[in-house]
């Protein structure tokens, strides 16, 4: 399966990249997507996640073709 990963704001800066494309089989959850893409990094506290531009939780299932995003607390307005 293919997952597009996007990173934003301070997370993007600390990782040094804005996206990854993950090609892997048997990815179950958002948490596993992070671990595969960033094997040496613990997921930061208070990070928010979205699947296909809707908020999701770390245990939510991902599917082939999904866009998974990780980002810090939002600060608009």
């Amino acid at each position, binding site marked *: 399966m293919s997952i597009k990963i996007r990173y934003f704001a301070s997370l993007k800066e600390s990782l040094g990249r804005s996206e990854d494309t993950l090609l892997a089989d048997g990815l179950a959850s958002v948490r596993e997507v992070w671990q595969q893409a960033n094997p040496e990094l613990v997921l930061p506290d208070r990070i928010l996640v979205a699947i296909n531009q*809707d908020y999701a939780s770390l245990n939510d299932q991902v599917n082939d073709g999904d866009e998974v*995003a990780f980002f810090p607390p939002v600060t608009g*307005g």
Partner: protein
Amino acid sequence: MTVIVTEQSFDPWQEIQNYQNAANLLDGQVGATDVFIGTMRDFNDGSEVQAMTLEHYPGMTEKQLENSVAEARQQWQVLDALVIHRVGDIFPNEAIVLVAVWAAHRGDAFDACRYLMEALKTKAPFWKKERLISADSRWVKENTDGYKSAK
């Protein structure tokens, strides 16, 4: 109901007038309009700020804002609503956000406008990065409850 995310600076009062005229909103039904404008301050969290860059998640931003407008319409009697939010480079005194709600009655206009602002602050994927006078820059960490900060 319109949601706009723009890199262009905008005059909030002019935008409201244009929208109101184009939508022909003043047709005898509107009794109450509540408008919130967020503008950039030159001082935040103890430091002088000279500019700000607003990053966002194109696509998700619009989707979340449209969801919030739909939720507001389910809860209150709203005739129309307009949300405009800046992204990119912003300078002090420029408008960052505009939320306008037109309704027959004032309770609906006030409640829906405030709901939209709080939803925007907690759900819409925008991130502010401040450029300080000191030449440092920093990400704003978290939105507040909207009152004077304790600092």
